[in-house]
């Protein structure tokens, strides 16, 4: 939680420096307000550096989450000038530094303090999704064979760093607060990764349609736009899942076929 790189007093080898203002949300789960902090910024700095400097210089109790500082852990999600972004990957030179830069917590989640939000809902949703269940091993030594071409699509989904920016921006959650009924884009990516995993034999489409309510998504692609891992959430995860749900539950031929099917799909696959 401490400031590590780019402290203001270390001016040698820092390149060009100038003053900038950051308007940072300070508050708890009840109230809060934007507070302006001035700090010195230099070449190559990201928003998280500025937050660390502010912690060291003038607000040691300014709460924020961060870990890797390299866009790999997905901890430092926030809304910067109103846009959901990772603070560690947002360079100041892509922002208008003539105006104060606003930094506030993700608004779709309850506030804990300052930039930290309660994201525990995401962990609960994930836990209710049926876990990975592999088919029997392909080889006698207990291993499987999978081909690169067959795993590439799933590998795209597995790049997800669980920053929850997609959840933050999704209007079903943000505007309509359907947290009790809808799993959100992150968990459709997760379910798509499981459903399209070459080894997986679990039946999950009932969950995707029912308790996770994929039908609420009307494909506005807001989630895809904010994904720092550039996962094509809507096109590659959500739409194919919607198609699978349609095939499984609404397609008349499948329906007819199911009438004659003796056993549920999960058993059949085994």
């Amino acid at each position: 939680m401490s400031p590590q790189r780019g402290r203001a007093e270390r001016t040698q080898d820092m390149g060009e420096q100038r003053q900038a203002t950051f308007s940072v949300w300070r508050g708890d789960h009840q109230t809060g307000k934007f507070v302006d902090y001035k700090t010195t910024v230099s070449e190559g700095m990201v928003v998280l550096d500025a937050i660390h400097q502010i912690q060291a210089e003038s607000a040691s109790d300014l709460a924020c989450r961060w870990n890797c500082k390299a866009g790999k852990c997905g901890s430092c999600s926030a809304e910067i000038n109103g846009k959901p972004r990772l603070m560690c990957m947002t360079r100041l030179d892509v922002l208008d530094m003539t105006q104060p830069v606003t930094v506030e917590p993700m608004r779709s989640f309850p506030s804990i303090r300052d930039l930290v939000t309660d994201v525990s809902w995401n962990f609960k949703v994930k836990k209710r999704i049926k876990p990975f269940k592999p088919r029997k091993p392909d080889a006698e030594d207990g291993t499987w064979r999978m081909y690169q071409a067959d795993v590439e699509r799933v590998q795209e989904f597995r790049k997800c760093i669980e920053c929850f920016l997609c959840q933050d921006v999704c209007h079903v959650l943000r505007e309509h607060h359907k947290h009790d009924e809808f799993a959100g884009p992150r968990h459709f990516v997760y379910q798509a990764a499981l459903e399209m995993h070459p080894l997986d034999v679990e039946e999950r489409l009932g969950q995707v349609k029912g308790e996770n309510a994929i039908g609420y998504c009307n494909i506005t692609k807001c989630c895809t736009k904010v994904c720092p891992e550039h996962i094509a959430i809507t096109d590659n995860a959500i739409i194919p899942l919607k198609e699978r749900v349609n095939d499984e539950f609404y397609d008349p031929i499948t329906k007819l076929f199911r009438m004659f099917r003796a056993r549920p799909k999960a058993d059949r696959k085994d």
Partner: protein
Amino acid sequence: MGTPQCITHEHQVLIIGAGGAGLRAAIEAASTGVNVGVVCKSLLGKAHTVMAEGGMAASMGNVDDRDNWRVHFADTMRGGQYLNNWRMAEIHARQAGDRVRELEAWGAIFDRTRDGKILQRNFGGHKYPRLAHVGDRTGLEMIRTLQDHGIHQGIEFYMEFTVLEILMDGDRVAGAVGYDREKGRFHLWKAPAIVLATGGIGRAFKITSNSWEYTGDGHALAYRAGAELKDMEFVQFHPTGMVWPPSVRGILVTEGVRGEGGVLRNSQGRRFMFDDIPDLYKNQTASDPEEGWRYVIGDKDAQRPPELLTRDHVARCIVREIREGRGSPHGGVYLDIAWIKEKMRNSEAHIRKKLPSMYHQFKQLAGVDITKDAMEVGPTTHYAMGGVNVDGQTQMSTVKGLFACGEVAAGLHGANRLGGNSLSDLVVFGKLAGEHAVEWARAHPNPTIDNSQVQSICRAALEPLERSGGESPYEVQATLQDMMQDKVGIVRKESEMAEAIDGIASLRKKAACASVPGNIEYNPGWHTAVDLHNLLVVSEAVARCALDRKESRGAHFRDDYPAKDEAHASHNTIVYRGADGAMVVERREITAMPTELSDIIKEMG
């Protein structure tokens, strides 16, 4: 002052840390039906394992069938300059393959060979392509797999909690005391067995690839509980961290770049790694760039390029180039993967496919397109080979009921860790620690908690909030990091280390009167003040061990003793807290290897 309230929990096995080692230990322990709790400083899935890039070493022989556990064992021992715990090196080499395959059974998807097996890549110090990987985000694949599997095993997770102290019942552990970040409430965990899986100590240094969490908590908790630490002088400085712009200094650039053919050049354009090849590796290293490239593309008759020598050596060569005035403008050297366009037509797509996060990291943070231009890189504090002294088989420390696995444990890596041996370390020894912790807990239930011990720990933790006008913990931490970087860093000498030891003593006094504003709810200033005590313990241990080893070996380089010395060839350095509270340094002879293992070393040259 009133009595701080403590929320009490009870577990048979308590695991501290939720990276690869902690999660694997928890899964193992839970599989036996015992009640398991995991305390972690961050949210689940954010631990430092997530940053591991290159891969996970296991001699599965999927790419080169000459590989087997004996070669992996010999490589690990050679890389560690034979100071390794040979039993751990053996267990690790034998079991790593099973642990990789187990991850696949839990849903991990590694990159594939043409015949559909797990693909393995080249890495420094490994004789054959051995690293199971997923592009350059292997750590994410591993932690997510363990997390997604682990949440269904009935384990209790305490996210964003920090442990302050281990509680003792006589000479055995009884539990732990800590606080939750959100509300600042104190918690007591009763547990007959505790597994430390807290990772490393990188935050003791200014330039590091490690996150804020890496404050040596497990090392210090074990030390204060009376356990021994071992080999603390061996801190790995990864040769390639980013150097520019300043805000990204230290962020890791995976060794996978060199595994895929990346070369190191100085400001004169010279591939300086060919200039100094250590005797131990002479017959394993390419004689010219052409042979090096043939190795990269899988020619089994070729030897590996000198960029894939061990990390300690590569880091020192880089420092030499910089010191002698042949560095890049921002104090690094050049790492070039773009040059492979001379060798392959679709090089840009190939680089983006093999090193996607490096591509984005440089593009986004440094404005460099690595498919077209060279990267500027320099050494960064990366990994602690040293740690809690554990039994090679059970992973129990010298304190009864206290186990350690992963980076916080010492032994597997000796004087220098090979890339890729860390991820496999986590799961091999995480599993063993979990297994043996259960065994201990079942045989030794119901330790007694000393409530006065609990109260004094909580009161001490609150002191920085109750003082005013004291030192800023950020300042103390920054001073310590600067000092460790300058005086106990990659090149060391006696006078400077002695100064550092004095400096640590005076910083300890400052830390003891640090004060922070605000309240106990999610207050990073307070957390920094609390963590400082751990950072000071590990810093002192590193400095004292480094001072005692009057030679250069592996990651430990002394300007005043630049050569290896036989007198230091067969002992580990141990530190523990003496009866008077002062740190005691002791040299301990390494027991001789059984012949079946020493024969492997002889045979592999």
